């Protein structure tokens, strides 16, 4: 198994429920898999330490929409994206779901958060999902 550290990064989808799901899923997955997170804005603003950090890590990008801001920016900064998750795709299995709003998730939104986080944690060999 890779000795590289894992960094999970969501897009900055602030102001949209998909973005909030990406952010919450990042926190949940990082908790379950004991992985790190990093401010995407820090990376985008060209911070040297942030760039150095992702160079030595396997990055998992969680994006709210198909624009894939997180995945693209991690790659542009020289990072290796080992898994790219799109929140919109998770809605396919939840037709008619009511996820909540950009500021507060409803039950359906949290359900999707847990699914994304569990999927990531399992992929990292942390299957004993809380």
């Amino acid at each position: 198994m890779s000795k590289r550290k894992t960094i999970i990064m969501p897009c900055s989808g602030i102001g949209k429920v998909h973005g909030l799901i990406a952010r919450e899923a990042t926190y949940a997955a990082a908790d379950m898999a004991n992985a790190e997170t990093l401010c995407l804005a820090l990376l985008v603003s060209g911070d040297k330490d942030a760039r150095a950090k992702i160079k030595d890590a396997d990055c998992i990008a969680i994006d709210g929409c198909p624009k894939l801001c997180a995945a693209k920016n991690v790659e542009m900064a020289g990072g290796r994206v080992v898994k790219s998750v799109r929140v919109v795709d998770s809605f396919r299995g939840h037709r008619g779901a009511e996820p909540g709003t950009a500021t507060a998730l409803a039950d359906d939104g949290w359900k999707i958060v847990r699914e994304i986080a569990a999927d990531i944690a399992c992929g990292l060999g942390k299957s004993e999902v809380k």
Partner: protein
Amino acid sequence: MKRVVLPCNGLDKAFGVLSCELALKLCETNGAQIVCPVLLNNSPARYEKTLAESDLLVIDGCPTRCASKLANNLGLKVDDKILVSEQAKSSGLEIGDSLRPDPVGMQLVDMMINDLAARESDISTQELIPGDFESPVDFLSVTHDKFIFKIPSQGYLFSENDTWVRVIGSRARVGVTDFVQQNLTDITYFEPAQAGSQIEQFDEVGSLESGKSMTDVLSPVSGRIIAVNIRLADSPELVNEDPYGNGWIAEIELADFDSDKELLLDAQSYSRIVEKKAAEVQK
């Protein structure tokens, strides 16, 4: 004018999370529009129209100031700025490390919303007051080696800390002298003080940063800060170009100018201090 907010949207720092909360709350309560920092970086054209038609508020979580850097890189005109960690410090609120905003964090967010509202009314009051703060035309010069330091010969008073003050009625404009700007060389960053706050003589009224060093600007007078030069957020080089005019730092509603004056110098006396300092810098 409509307001748009550019938050750093930090994720792994408590102050970054609060910057995000503040942006969301401003949207909900004041109808502000959020600019996503990453999308802005990738496709600035997308926000071109919105930014041209609105006042831009930049919110940074911590002193890394990601959002400010981004705005600066893209050459955006910044109308106001907030640094959440600084706000926490000045309000005395203890913000822990938790990435879930707790009641204290939300109290800080509410305080910042109130401060912003107060700041807005300060700035509009300032626009209504007529005042003549044009750049000076007559100067004394102090020459040292290959350097020439200019000092306005009339209408300005100076502190030993190399700041100037120009008074009109009960208002004063303050800034740094030519000596400071030449010593700092190219100024790249300006951090304003909080508009609306009350300061004593020689309290901090902003800070300037260049590749060479950083300097706190100490106000030569006491009073209430009624305006900060927000143009410097975008164009800090104005301090280099016109330190006594367009590069002003703040406007103060004077509290006790008569006693402040006792510690201030006229152009002649200040020029002697500059001579000495220039000789020391040279050593």
